[in-house]
């Protein structure tokens, strides 16, 4: 009686087993890792805007504070994008003939708002409120990165649920003194109050910040 398996069967079996293992591993990567990758999360991607606005020039170069344009950040859920009126506070007098700013001038004369593209977005089932984060000592940089170093604005952090929870589980080290909230390149130093002291100052910690309804409501 001839052998049931020919010598080739060894190779075929090995290839099949490797294939199945690869398929499972690939499937896991495709299912779990790929959607969470920086590529899919658009981290570091600049976005086409109606005007090529440079945060680097306005924040680093001129020293303009975040609140000058995002003026509702302390009072509202939205930090808000500036109306054309805010741009014209300065650009009614300087760079009045610049080609780059023609869209801003058109917006003013035609009384239609500039439509900026959103750079940092969270899913619609997430409730995010800027004012409470700013009031409790979370700096802009913690989620938006060092905006002052961005010639064109891009999303700096993945903003996955893990990103939010890492801080909600242990907020202390992400908190900073009031004077440094809008500092775009802040680092803890010897004079910075300890994490526990900042938690006490801002009255953070009494509530469980990982409850579902904190973010999903």
């Amino acid at each position, binding site marked *: 009686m001839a052998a049931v398996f020919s010598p080739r069967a060894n190779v075929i079996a090995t290839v099949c087993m490797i294939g199945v293992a690869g398929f499972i591993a690939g499937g896991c990567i495709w299912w779990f890792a790929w959607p969470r990758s920086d590529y899919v999360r658009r981290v570091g991607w600049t976005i086409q805007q109606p005007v090529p606005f440079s945060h680097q020039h306005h924040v680093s170069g*001129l020293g303009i504070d975040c609140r000058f344009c995002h003026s509702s950040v302390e009072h509202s859920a939205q930090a808000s994008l500036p109306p054309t009126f805010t741009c014209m506070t300065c650009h009614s007098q300087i760079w009045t003939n610049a080609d780059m700013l023609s869209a801003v001038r058109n917006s003013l004369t035609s009384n239609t708002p500039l439509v900026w593209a959103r750079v940092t977005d969270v899913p619609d089932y997430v409730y995010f409120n800027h004012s409470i984060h700013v009031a409790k000592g979370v700096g802009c940089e913690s989620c938006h990165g060092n905006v002052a170093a961005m010639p064109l604005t891009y999303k700096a952090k993945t903003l996955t649920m893990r990103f939010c929870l890492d801080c909600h589980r242990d907020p202390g080290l992400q908190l900073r003194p009031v004077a440094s909230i809008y500092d775009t390149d802040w680092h803890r130093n010897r004079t910075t109050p300890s994490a526990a002291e900042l938690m006490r100052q801002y009255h953070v910690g009494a509530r469980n910040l990982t409850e579902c309804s904190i973010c999903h409501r």
Partner: protein
Amino acid sequence: MNVSAAGLLLAVLLLAGGCDDMTQQKKENPYASSETAPATVPDSVVEFQDSDHPPPALTLTLLQRGQSEFHAFCSPCHAETGNGHGMVVQRGFPAPEPLTDPDLMTASPRHLYDVLTDGKGIMYGFAQRISPEDRWAIVAYMRALQLSQHATLASLTPEQQAMP
């Protein structure tokens, strides 16, 4: 056979339901138009902007708030010292008068508040950007800036004079 096919179809449909990750959800904004708004505004109601905002009590907290707001909104042109040579002025914006100008030293707080609210000359108004309490805080801080540049040793308390 038909039962199993129907069962398979149902299972596929249920699975397909999971494909919507709900990151984009259309929401109705009831205030978007007067037709969907919950109620019409009575005539007696004035806009927050037009209501009276009396000056708050002068406290250290108010001055610190004023310093922070002055830095954010005023210092690009007026500079941190109020001398009118802020960074935007250095880049070509017409220079404003220094805050220690005699007219401004004697101006009433209400006048400074009104200029902040409505603007003056080429300065735009900041009513939309700075809340009324914060505008008063800036006025208080401007007064402190003015005082700081005309302070004499005699105007300090003995404790302050004794400080190194």
